[in-house]
């Protein structure tokens, strides 16, 4: 049997998926604790035992690929010149590489900024600034400041090409990697090279620095950070079969949204701001089902959460307090389940709203003009829900439907009539890893494991799996 083992060294769990590459099916899943802070092998062995218990004796795997979000994820600091321009482009590149952004800086770094960056102790710093042929002074000032600092992490330079040679000298005492400018021309984004550079630094250095390679006997390679694996999975199913997609992943601490869609304005609508990347990831740090349950309530309004859950506001407060304190708690009582459901609905709704663009009407002497900020995702073909919260939910459709356009918010460019799909076995990340070696099998496997929520209960839907358009 030709098979693969896909590993996610997560922040809470070590998760395994064993797949049969010929039959395009899931052999089994396994889970152990995350033990990266002590010895990563302990959690890995527990997960393998769990997998063997469920799936029987394991085959010899042809591939054993891993992603990681353990030990705080890939913690990055980004630096640019103008906040809305190169600083934003750098942010987009880091997010697209699957990083956890711990700090974003713009303009000249002050001594105070440098102290902050050193205290944040990032895994990688991404330094941008200036278009090619544009401003050099600020990016060189920042390179000199970083070069003279106590910072020990690798620095990826993706700024003005004309300043690169001088920056190389200024950063000679550090591990510095030079790549293409994230904004070579004004308002032109080129984030793929920076994304690739960050990923190779991750594979070559961070995996070792975080102690993940101590489990090297159990895997062949750590290919990318886990959020990047989900993004690659999204790109795979979008380009391979589904057209344009939006993936929403509500988690314990954050809610991630990925879109693979051009998002261009409708005819006659004027775009404003930076052009949007076709493959885009956003992370909502205040929308999490456990660690950040209180901020979900804050963002949605306690009255809305209480009404949606059908419980009183006082009880919502009490339950949320409990959730924040016991992040690993699974809902037991009816009210706890109802609150979880309402929190997930709110997190999905708000995170997707923030990911999608908006329209605004500007009144000019020649009549009203419609202006668009961000991506127009109204015509997206499919919305995919992934992650533990949705997989465990009894009514995933009700949660995912919050990603859809709402007549009460006509200016939000959310999907109007997509198919609603559920990644019930949490296989999208695994297929994102697998596509690096077996793209065809990865695509078919991913599609076979997406449940069409609108056809789920229809008698003619054999297993409810998804077929290409």
């Amino acid at each position, binding site marked *: 049997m030709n098979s693969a083992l896909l590993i996610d060294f997560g922040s809470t769990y070590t998760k395994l998926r064993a797949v049969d590459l010929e039959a395009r099916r899931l052999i089994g899943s396994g889970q152990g604790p995350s033990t990266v802070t002590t010895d990563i092998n302990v959690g890995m062995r527990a997960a393998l035992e769990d997998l063997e218990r469920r799936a029987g004796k394991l085959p010899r795997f042809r591939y054993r690929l891993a992603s990681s979000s353990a030990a705080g994820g890939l913690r990055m600091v980004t630096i640019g*010149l*103008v906040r*809305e*321009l*190169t600083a934003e482009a750098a942010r987009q590149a880091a997010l697209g590489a699957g990083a956890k952004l711990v700090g974003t800086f713009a303009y000249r770094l002050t001594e105070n900024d440098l102290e902050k960056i050193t205290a944040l102790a990032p895994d990688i710093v991404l330094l941008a600034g*200036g*278009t090619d*042929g*544009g*401003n*050099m002074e600020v990016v060189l000032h920042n390179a000199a400041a970083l070069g003279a600092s106590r910072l020990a992490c690798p620095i990826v330079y993706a700024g003005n090409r004309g300043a690169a040679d001088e920056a190389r000298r200024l950063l000679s005492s550090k591990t510095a990697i030079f790549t293409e400018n994230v*904004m070579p021309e*004004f*308002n032109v984004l080129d984030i793929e090279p920076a994304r690739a550079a960050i990923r190779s630094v991750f594979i070559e250095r961070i995996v070792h620095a975080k102690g993940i390679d101590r489990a090297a006997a159990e895997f062949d390679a750590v290919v990318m950070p886990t959020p990047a694996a989900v993004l690659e999975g999204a790109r795979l199913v979008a380009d391979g079969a589904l057209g344009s997609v939006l993936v929403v992943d509500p988690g314990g601490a954050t809610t991630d949204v990925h879109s693979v869609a051009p998002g261009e304005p409708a005819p006659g609508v*004027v775009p*404003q701001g930076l052009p949007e990347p076709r493959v885009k990831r956003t992370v909502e740090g205040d929308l999490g089902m456990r660690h950040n349950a209180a901020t979900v309530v804050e963002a949605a309004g306690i009255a809305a959460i209480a009404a949606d859950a059908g419980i009183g506001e006082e009880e919502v407060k009490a339950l949320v307090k409990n959730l924040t304190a016991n992040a690993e708690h699974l809902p037991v009582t009816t009210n706890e389940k109802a609150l979880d459901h309402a929190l997930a609905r709110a997190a999905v709704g708000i995170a997707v709203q923030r990911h999608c663009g908006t329209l605004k009407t*500007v*009144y*000019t*002497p*020649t009549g009203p*003009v419609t*202006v668009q900020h961000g991506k127009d995702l109204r015509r997206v073909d499919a919305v995919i829900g992934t992650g533990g919260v949705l997989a465990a939910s009894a009514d995933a459709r009700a949660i995912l439907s919050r990603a859809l356009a709402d007549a009460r918010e006509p200016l939000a460019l959310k999907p109007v009539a997509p198919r609603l799909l559920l990644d019930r076995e949490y296989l999208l990340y695994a297929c994102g890893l697998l596509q690096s070696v077996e793209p065809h099998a990865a695509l078919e496997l991913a599609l076979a494991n997406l449940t069409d929520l609108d056809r789920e209960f229809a008698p003619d839907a054999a297993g409810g799996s998804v077929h290409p358009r």
Partner: protein
Amino acid sequence: MPSGTIVTGVIGSDTHIVGNRILTMALEKAGYKVVSLGALTPAADFVRAAVETRAGAILVSSLYGQGELDCRGFRDLCTEAGLEDILLYVGGNLVVGKRSWAETEQTYLAMGFDRVAPPGTRSEAVLEWLAQDLPAMESRAKKHKM
């Protein structure tokens, strides 16, 4: 052959793009690198673009009569962003109502613009201004840095 980067655009809620486009084409033909922001451009966007691209001049168009409101504080925005020496030109139908050109020009010069172009200004005239002003600006900027 002139060199340097120039930012152009139509300020405020103004959609009149044709004149600005003709000017942009003339500048490109003359050898400048042009960052063309197009219609409906907020003042702050001109400044951000100029910072990132190290532009030598910003050329602001306004055709709908509201320029006086839109351009107020433009020079201050530039100074705030560290562009003390950048050249600022403005052109178009710059005021509403009956005001003499001399008066209009004075209004905009007082706002900190270096050149004020009345309706019907030919692009050749703008190129001549730039040929004179850019070298002067550059030597001024050098002095500032010392």
